[in-house]
């Protein structure tokens, strides 16, 4: 794996011209706690150093435009065509195209590596807002663009970014009655897509380990073999059976520290939740009900587990302590609740809700209060959080017609229910799992 090094954190003061401080600065910041705000207009000049420089700028534009908090000003509108990466731009030119922020950068070859310098200028105050410098292998240019996007996002919103991340999902192809379902992994923006399973048997519900080096998922055995949980190394592809039990084992999830996997095991019509120690492979039962207990998920601090159960008649959400016990129901609205996912910030639990009208994606606080629905449709299912807890990804399914499977696609949406957009995938896609930030 590559390790981009933050060699310098350029300070702004030395280079900054004296600008109007105070109020105007608000334009390059977003107070996301406000119920309504305008997207920040931002200009991103092609980085110097072809061709990677222009491509990097393209990746950054795409990231910022897609997140909904920025309005990327089209390059055709730029007045100052040639912007030096290290000296201040002609701020007046950028003010007159309506930009609040300006991103410039340059890529230079140093031996076998590339050095990337970037700056974010606050056009309103004529000051440098942030700047970074990296040295890395040339093949890592996309990651560097994501890291820069995260730096811009953080400077403007005050929140951690989520662009330097990956998404695991289920790729779906083939006829409706015999779909091929493979595990795939891609960058958050859809680039670098690759498949981790061969599609000979159905594979479902992938989840990343906290280091991103491994995923757990469920797959059927050859010749109608029952579903089992597998642990697979993302880079080497080496996989091993994690749940070789008499019944079906499924719905695996890592604990936040990566030392445990929780999963469901179904046997004789009962489905309970178990915890497995990844290293020692010791299995421990966490729930013991005659009902279906599944879709477990750890809280961010690892102290609790939320899951869904139909022990009370219909699927509802329950929280218990991580070692089992203390189970209490938290969902009480109309309809059935499923696939609870604890926010990385710990404040919210996202879920799928099935009501009379259809499916919905919603969030509630971890005590079950403050329920809000964010998206709905014929089939929307399986929310997963971006590492900053501000954005969710889920999948949408369309009704099938004429014997053909309805399409399935990944979507992301802001936690306030705004900026929904489809995430591009090479095939139909379901069951997304958003990774933590890639370790640097």
């Amino acid at each position: 794996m590559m390790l981009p090094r933050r060699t310098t954190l350029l300070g702004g003061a030395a280079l900054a011209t004296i600008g109007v401080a105070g109020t105007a600065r608000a334009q390059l910041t977003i107070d996301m706690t406000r119920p309504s705000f305008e997207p920040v207009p931002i200009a991103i000049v092609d980085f110097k150093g072809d061709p990677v420089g222009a491509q990097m700028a393209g990746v950054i534009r795409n990231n910022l435009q897609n997140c909904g908090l920025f309005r990327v000003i089209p390059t055709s509108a730029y007045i100052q065509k040639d912007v030096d990466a290290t000296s201040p731009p002609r701020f007046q030119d950028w003010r007159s195209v309506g930009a609040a922020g300006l991103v410039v950068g340059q890529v230079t070859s140093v031996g076998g590596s590339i050095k990337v310098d970037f700056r974010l200028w606050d056009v309103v105050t004529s000051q440098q807002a942030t700047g970074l410098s990296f040295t890395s292998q040339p093949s890592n240019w996309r990651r560097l663009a994501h890291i820069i996007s995260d730096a811009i996002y953080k400077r403007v919103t005050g929140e951690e970014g989520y662009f330097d991340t990956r998404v695991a999902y289920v790729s779906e192809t083939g006829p409706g009655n015999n779909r091929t379902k493979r595990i795939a992994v891609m960058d958050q923006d859809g680039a670098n897509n690759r498949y981790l399973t061969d599609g000979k048997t159905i594979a479902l519900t992938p989840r990343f380990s906290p280091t991103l080096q491994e995923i757990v998922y469920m797959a059927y055995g050859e010749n109608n073999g029952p579903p089992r949980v597998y642990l697979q190394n993302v880079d080497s592809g080496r996989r091993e059976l994690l749940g070789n039990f008499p019944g079906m084992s499924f719905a695996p999830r890592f604990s936040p520290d990566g030392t445990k996997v929780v999963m469901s095991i179904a046997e004789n019509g009962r489905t309970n939740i178990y915890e497995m120690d990844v290293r020692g492979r010791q299995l421990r039962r966490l729930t013991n009900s005659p009902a279906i207990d599944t879709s477990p998920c750890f809280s961010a601090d690892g102290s609790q587990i939320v899951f869904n159960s139909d022990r009370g008649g219909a699927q509802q959400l329950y929280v218990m302590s991580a070692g089992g016990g203390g189970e209490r129901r938290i969902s009480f609205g109309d309809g059935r609740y499923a696939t609870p996912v604890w926010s990385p910030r710990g404040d919210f639990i996202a879920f799928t809700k099935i009501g009379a009208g259809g499916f919905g994606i919603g969030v509630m606080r971890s005590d079950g209060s403050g329920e809000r629905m964010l998206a709905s449709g014929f089939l929307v299912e399986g929310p997963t959080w971006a590492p900053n807890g501000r954005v969710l990804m889920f999948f949408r399914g369309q009704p099938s017609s004429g014997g053909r499977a309805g399409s399935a696609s990944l979507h992301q949406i802001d936690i306030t229910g705004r900026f929904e957009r489809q995430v591009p995938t090479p095939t139909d896609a379901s069951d997304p799992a958003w990774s933590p930030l890639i370790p640097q």
Partner: protein
Amino acid sequence: MAAFDVNKALAMKIFPSRLALLIVLALPTAAAAQRGGDAVYIDDRLNQLQQSLTMMTGQIEQLQNRNAKLQQQMEKMQADYEYRIEQLEKGGAGRPGGAAPRPGAQAAAPATPSPTPPAGAANADQLYDEAVKKLQEGDYAAAERGFRTFIQRNPQNKLAGNAQYWLGETYYARRDYSNALTAFAEGYKVYKNSPKGPDNLLKLGITMSVMGRKPDACAVFARFNQDYPRATDLQKRRIDQERQKNGCG
């Protein structure tokens, strides 16, 4: 076909048992249930028990939940009564937020309570903070309740104008424009000189514009410079933008 089944069933019955044969002949429907013998019967009973247990589990969960909610409400009400009685006993003089509203627009920074709130105002500040927190969490309904309670209890508090403005925002965020309009209009009427006054007027106009009442929106924007000559540049720019967007003359 069905006859074959019944006949076969009779022929293959392993234990030519008791009266079952007669029952089978007399009641072909019961035959199906009886053929597997006691095992099916026990399975059925178990399933029924399981189902009623499940139903009862669900009902208990709901009752517990309702119970917990009622208890919370009671505690809140009790605290509220105690507070009111306490105020009455003080002769009604101890109304929180007794400080006079500060006239003149201040910088529209998000209002945080002053570091050392005057005695008696703690409760009000707490209420305000709680509502702001709800707002930040996106729980607009709770934020709405919070700000409304705050305004009702502390109409003279220095944060009342802010609360009125944020009350409007809780509606606006939920696209409840008519209530947002009422709240912003009320804010303009009652708390014109609050630090949030300019923002409030701006938002009043924007809400009108969203509701398709452009001439009204323009009229509101037109008042801005006259009412708030000392507004910040940012606020003035926003007004200009809005005027342009709505094609105001």
